[in-house]
């Protein structure tokens, strides 16, 4: 039962999010019948699922919403801003109620009836009083019309895009007061439409009949927007021993490869096989038979929900296997047994594939994160009296689930900042010859083995002079200092920095951007800012694909091993003093085919005594900047499991984490971005002095 409840919450959250997305799409675009249908289906499914779980208040509330949406759908009404606001508030209220059911069970809220009343009033065109903003703040309304009163029509209309199923239902063998198959089938009609039911029975004469035995079963053609699992749960959980088979009536083309032979796509025969009417009784609807040729094997098994804990446990196990495999490879390095070497090589391949496949399970499209922003942008812009259009690109880019969750807060803050500080009020934009509606672009893409997320706006850009004045005021620079723009941009990421003239509840408290930067860096990522006065600002976040396992290159300095991400390595070559240039014996550069690249001696960086001055140079590149790293030797390429230094020790500048090598030793993993930044900053300071 616990897994069923978890399934309910998972689906409920998806449906609520879906409702919100559809409402926002409806609000910003032309009324589209299919979009309204989608909205109706979400509400209808949510209602049924809630009822199946016994959450009657939630079910009743969404029932009322469904009715309102039915009016929108049937009468093709436009979604007015007032109605959109109310429906979005209803979505928020569902979220609140949903969360409360976790701890309080089947709970309601007076705000539900009030909100339904307001929605009904908005639909009928009468005035609407100010709606409550949160469930807890809602007035204790006197008994108001219930959802049933608001309801106009609750029977779902059969539409071509509602999935159909062939349901084989064998009730539990024993009948009793709680187990009545007819009652269950009646409840099934709450969640969909029984298009045809074939009753099969082997009922004996009275002498052999056992009154508590069940002799019947059903084959049902059923249309529902619900998940089959909910239908199954309804029928199976009512009494022990029931057997239910659910097969989707789907087109073959949808489930087999494109080059496979396909069956006709129309799944249902047009001719009715049985229609029965009696003159005085309600007319029976025409029924259709299931075409066995058009049915396909159940798609229920094509995907399953697995708890993230289980996936994380699997990932940890794979990480340990990677380490063990590395140890095995290390242990057999001197072995000449060809069979053993071949077996280990094969195992390496399999472990790598295992790792990649488990990693793929953890990857989620960034749309999971991006989809929450349209609502936030809408609400924030409305609150600030601004007009903002959010454009999103690359939502299909996949990212590790842990990273996605960790990026939520930084992105939220950056987008709020863009609306609050970046986008100008509509009249100001018009005065400047800009479109009245500002644009914020949110895009994601993969490059150089990393994920890039960009947030850009076409607002006023960063006022570098104001940043400079603020830095002077904070004592960070002198009055006559004029640092380059890049340095000034860095100030906005410092704790306590804010140029906002008014502190709002959205931004301007100076406690945000430093947290943004720290959060991104704690993920092994980095953040850059580009801005042009009057034209806009662009933040670029770079994060690794995953936090778990990576391909690394082993570097050796004074017999100590270090790891550098393989994606950052450009080339390696023997150090040649002729390539070397130094300024004040500190500002060291290496000439690589005419390109002067700053040199960092790793031995010096980690505080080891001077030793080998020659050795090897490994050229590293990140974000378009290069660094020549001098080391003693290369230990080889290997997969490494990242262990956080911050969690297990403290954050160490220049290092992204640690790993366990095949021989059991610990190696530090270099943070290439940080090393490059530190080297370039030091060199710039030296150049400035020079």
């Amino acid at each position, binding site marked *: 039962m616990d897994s069923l409840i978890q399934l309910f919450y998972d689906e409920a959250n998806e449906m609520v999010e879906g409702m919100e997305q559809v409402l926002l799409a409806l609000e910003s675009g032309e009324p589209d019948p299919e979009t309204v249908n989608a909205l109706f289906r979400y509400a209808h499914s949510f209602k049924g699922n809630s009822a199946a779980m016994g959450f009657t208040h939630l079910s009743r509330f969404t029932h009322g919403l469904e009715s309102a949406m039915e009016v929108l759908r049937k009468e093709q009404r436009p979604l007015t801003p007032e109605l959109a606001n109310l429906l979005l508030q209803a979505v928020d209220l569902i979220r609140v109620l949903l969360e409360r059911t976790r701890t309080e069970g089947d709970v309601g809220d007076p705000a539900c009836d009030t909100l339904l009343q307001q929605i009904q009033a908005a639909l009928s065109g009468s005035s609407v009083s100010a709606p409550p903003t949160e469930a807890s703040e809602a007035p204790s309304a006197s008994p108001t019309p219930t959802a049933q009163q608001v309801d106009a029509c609750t029977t779902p209309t059969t539409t071509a895009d509602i999935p159909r199923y062939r349901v084989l239902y064998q*009730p539990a063998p024993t*009948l*009793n*007061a709680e187990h*009545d*198959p*007819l*009652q269950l*089938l*009646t409840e099934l*009609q709450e969640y969909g439409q*029984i298009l*045809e*039911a*074939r*009753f099969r*029975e082997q*009922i*004996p*004469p*009275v*002498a*052999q*009949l056992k*009154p*508590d035995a*069940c*002799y*019947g079963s*059903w084959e049902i053609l059923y249309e529902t927007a619900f998940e089959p699992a909910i239908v199954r749960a309804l029928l199976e959980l009512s009494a022990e021993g029931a057997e239910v088979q659910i097969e989707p009536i789907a087109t073959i083309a949808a489930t087999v490869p494109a080059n496979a032979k396909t069956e006709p796509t129309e799944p249902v025969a047009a001719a009715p096989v*049985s229609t*029965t009417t*009696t003159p*005085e*009784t*309600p007319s*029976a609807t025409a029924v259709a038979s299931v075409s066995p040729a058009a049915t396909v094997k159940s798609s229920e098994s094509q995907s399953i929900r697995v708890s993230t804990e289980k996936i994380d446990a699997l990932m940890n196990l794979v990480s340990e296997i990677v380490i063990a495999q590395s140890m095995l490879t290390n242990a057999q390095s001197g072995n000449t047994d060809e069979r053993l070497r071949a077996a280990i090589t094969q195992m390496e391949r399999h472990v790598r594939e295992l790792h990649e496949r488990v990693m793929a399970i953890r990857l989620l499209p960034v749309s999971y994160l991006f989809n929450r922003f349209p609502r936030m942008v809408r609400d924030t812009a409305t609150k600030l009296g601004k007009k903002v259009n959010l454009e999103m690109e690359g939502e299909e880019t996949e990212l590790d689930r842990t990273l996605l969750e960790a990026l939520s807060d930084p992105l939220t803050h950056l987008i709020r900042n863009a609306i609050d500080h970046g986008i100008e009020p509509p009249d100001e934009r018009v005065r400047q010859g800009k479109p009245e509606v500002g644009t914020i672009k949110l895009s994601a893409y993969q490059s150089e083995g990393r994920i890039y997320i960009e947030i850009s706006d076409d607002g006023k850009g960063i006022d570098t002079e104001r940043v400079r004045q603020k830095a002077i005021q904070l004592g960070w620079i002198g009055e006559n200092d004029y640092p380059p723009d890049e340095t000034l941009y860095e100030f906005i990421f410092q704790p306590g920095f804010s140029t906002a003239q008014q502190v709002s509840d959205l931004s301007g408290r100076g406690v945000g951007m430093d947290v943004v930067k720290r959060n991104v860096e704690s993920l092994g990522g980095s953040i850059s800012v580009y801005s042009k006065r009057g034209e806009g600002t662009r933040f670029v976040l770079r994060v690794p694909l995953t936090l778990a396992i990576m391909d690394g290159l082993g570097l050796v300095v004074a017999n100590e091993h270090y790891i550098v991400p393989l994606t950052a390595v450009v080339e390696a070559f023997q150090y040649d003093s002729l390539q070397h240039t130094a300024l004040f014996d500190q500002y060291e550069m290496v000439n690589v085919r005419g390109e002067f690249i700053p040199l960092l001696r790793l031995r010096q960086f980690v505080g080891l005594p001077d030793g080998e001055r020659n050795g090897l140079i490994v050229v590293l590149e990140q974000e378009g900047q290069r660094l020549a790293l001098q080391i003693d030797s290369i230990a080889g390429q290997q997969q490494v499991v990242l262990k956080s230094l911050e969690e297990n020790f403290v954050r160490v500048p220049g290092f992204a984490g640690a790993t366990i090598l095949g021989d059991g030793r610990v190696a530090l993993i270099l943070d290439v971005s940080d090393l490059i930044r530190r080297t370039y900053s030091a060199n710039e300071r030296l150049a400035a002095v020079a």
Partner: protein
Amino acid sequence: MHTTLKTTAKKHKLTLSGEIGYPESLELWETIQHIAQDPKDTTVDWSNLSRLHFSGVQMLFALRRSLEEHHHRLQFSEPNPALYQQLHTFGVWDALIES
């Protein structure tokens, strides 16, 4: 009473009314056994029956089979529309009445 039986020399008339859930169907079961032991043409008046537990439905099927074994008929009056709709939608009507 949800179940009443009137018997004449040639016929039984079984009247069902209200809601017959599982407990009430046991009362119906006694009556049906009585009819089966004294088989005659039987009419079921269920015009005022709004709900019948599946157990009761099976009893009517069984009664029809028992009566047919003795060449008697089981006939039904016009049902309550709600009950008809339910039995028809779930395919039971056809099996009980039409087949």
